[in-house]
């Protein structure tokens, strides 16, 4: 047999040549090595998946969002009809819209999980204060996405959530009236509101999120992962591995789990629109999305009655809470990261979570009372 015509193993294939050509100009190999070879102190963990999962959810929201814009029209006279068209007439439109809707819910859930993990692990402490601050800004952006996206289908649910949401903003001292009118583009929700929310939802917030998420990751890489909150240096070193493959594997499993959960919800609980938006609520009992129910229930309390009470419940309380979160790394300067040695932090977390749970359940129980 003639073996001389066989290519020798030392000769690069066309694909290798193309890769080398690009690599020489871009530095792909170094980039890839830098991306993947990040030591994870103490080894990979399931608790670390939420950041990557959030990035995944955001990418899917961007993809489904762009697809929805192929049919959606952001005008007061066509928004509702075009959304109904997506649901009823466009192939798989119901699925993409429902995916986008449940994806936003998944985003909120994962943001809570991510923030809780960082809080409990004490990972916001020096030198990671800025990562925490940028993270809080990202949290605000996610809430902004939820709020602006909710109006776009222009059904009754959308209209009333916006009406009440903007009225709450209106309670901000001095600037409230201006802010509320600025957002609505007038005195009441209408075309101007829809245009504004649409632009904010599809242009302003995505740009802000991409920029800040990039900064978040850059700062994270700059400081390095915090690692576990207990264990000796030797133990941590012995268990250390790189981001690839073990952590990436866990991240991917997390993404698949979230993806399947969103798909299932979209499949079994697809979006159904209510009547078209109008200032007459009819029989509809306005209620926000479930993750805002606790705030909604909070505003029903007698303590938050009257003009001042409302300011207290709707503006001051959430404002103080966010300000405390922002100040956290600067107040809590104790380098101790073990959550079991930080009783105030642990108790605060439990109290906040329990309050959210109790108020949410109370809001759900109140529903029956209204029937």
């Amino acid at each position: 047999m003639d073996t001389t015509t066989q290519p020798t193993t030392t000769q690069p294939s066309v694909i290798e040549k193309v890769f080398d050509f690009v690599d020489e100009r871009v530095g792909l190999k170094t980039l890839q090595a830098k991306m993947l070879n990040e030591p994870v102190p103490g080894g990979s963990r399931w608790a670390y998946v939420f950041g990557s999962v959030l990035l995944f959810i955001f990418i899917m929201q961007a993809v489904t969002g762009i697809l929805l814009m192929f049919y959606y029209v952001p005008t007061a006279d066509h928004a509702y009809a075009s959304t109904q068209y997506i649901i009823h007439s466009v192939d798989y439109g119901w699925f993409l819209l429902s995916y986008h809707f449940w994806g936003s819910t998944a985003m909120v859930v994962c943001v809570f999980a991510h923030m809780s993990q960082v809080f409990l692990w004490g990972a916001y402490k020096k030198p990671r204060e800025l990562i925490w601050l940028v993270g809080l800004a990202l949290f605000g952006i996610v809430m902004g996405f939820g709020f602006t996206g909710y109006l776009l289908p222009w059904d009754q649910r959308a209209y009333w959530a916006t009406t009440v949401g903007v009225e709450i903003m209106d309670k901000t001292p001095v600037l409230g009236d201006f802010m509320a009118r600025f957002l609505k583009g007038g005195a009441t929700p209408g075309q101007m509101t829809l245009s504004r929310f649409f632009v904010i939802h599809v242009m302003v917030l995505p740009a802000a999120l991409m920029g800040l998420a990039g900064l978040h990751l850059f700062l994270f890489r700059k400081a390095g992962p915090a690692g576990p909150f207990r264990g000796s240096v030797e133990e941590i070193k012995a268990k250390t591995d790189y981001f690839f493959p073990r952590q990436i594997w866990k991240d991917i499993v997390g993404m698949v789990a979230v993806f399947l959960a969103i798909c299932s919800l979209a499949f079994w609980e697809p979006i159904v629109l209510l009547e078209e938006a109008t200032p007459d609520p009819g029989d509809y009992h306005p209620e926000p999305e479930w993750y805002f129910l606790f705030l909604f229930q909070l505003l029903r309390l007698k303590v938050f009655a009257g003009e001042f009470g409302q300011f207290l419940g709707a503006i001051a309380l959430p404002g103080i809470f966010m300000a405390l979160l922002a100040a956290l790394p600067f107040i809590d300067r104790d380098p101790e990261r073990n959550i079991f040695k930080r009783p105030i932090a642990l108790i605060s977390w439990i109290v906040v979570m329990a309050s959210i749970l109790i108020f949410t359940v109370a809001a759900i129980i109140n529903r029956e009372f209204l029937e």
Partner: protein
Amino acid sequence: MQPKLKSTVRCTDGEVGEVRRVIMDPLSHEISHIVVGGGTAALVERQVPMGQVQGVTDEVVTLRGTSAEFTALPAFKRDEYVTTHEVEIAHLEERIHVTPGEVLVPFPELERSVKRRTFFANFTHAIGFLIGFPLAFPVLRYLMKPMYSPFDNDWLKIGNSSKIKQDDVGVQFKYKRKIKEAYMPEQEIDKNVWVLKATPKVLETIYQGKDMEFRDSAGKHIWTNKKDVPYIAYSGKCPHLGCGFKWRTHKTLGQVFLCPCHLSIYDAAGKVLDGPAPRPLDPLPIKVTATGDITIIDMEFKAGTKAQVRIV
């Protein structure tokens, strides 16, 4: 002092080679080992823990043991390590001072004569500011265009009083209102008000013995609701946070106006009985003709304030 690359390595009984590489500890960011090779005794590169190093000068690294002990140390296995270029460990490179000396590139000729660097940097910032600043006001005004519009004080027919069968009972009147928003075609939106045929007792609670005057922001008189006219129209918007309230039977309070959002409860006179609302329901200007036709001026007030602030 950190051992430098190419430094000569000496044992108690003589030279064994030179520093070929250093190994960093990824957690402490300190040098943990040096790799020694090149000498006659060291054909194989060996890995020496820093604990074995007795002294470091600019050019010489002295080890504690003899050259025999040195050759007993484990051989350096290259495939158990990666270079610092292939891995991302925050702040590691800042801690390495093992390069044999400074690595230099020439400073360009033209740059050497430039003195006022700070001035040029600030000048660049100033230009950026000069581009951005004049735009701020026009952009703000651009975005504010439709925020404030004059009120519409036209009378709107909403139905006939024959629909009201009982006194002091809230009856919802739904009506359509035409709106023309900026460039949009004229649209009809659904709205509602609650109309009440009030008994003198309820009227007294509402009017407190005085007629109710409606004036525009300039103080010009628009309309007066006479205190003895039994018909009252409440704006359909809850004064708490703007939801739509309903006429409902309450277990203990009887027939009331109830807002399903935050559970504000008002009696027939619009007075707050329970819940977070900051003020009573908002009566609107109402006219009832001899044939029973009800017309109103469709006003809306800001929710959540103690005082009535008209916004529509």
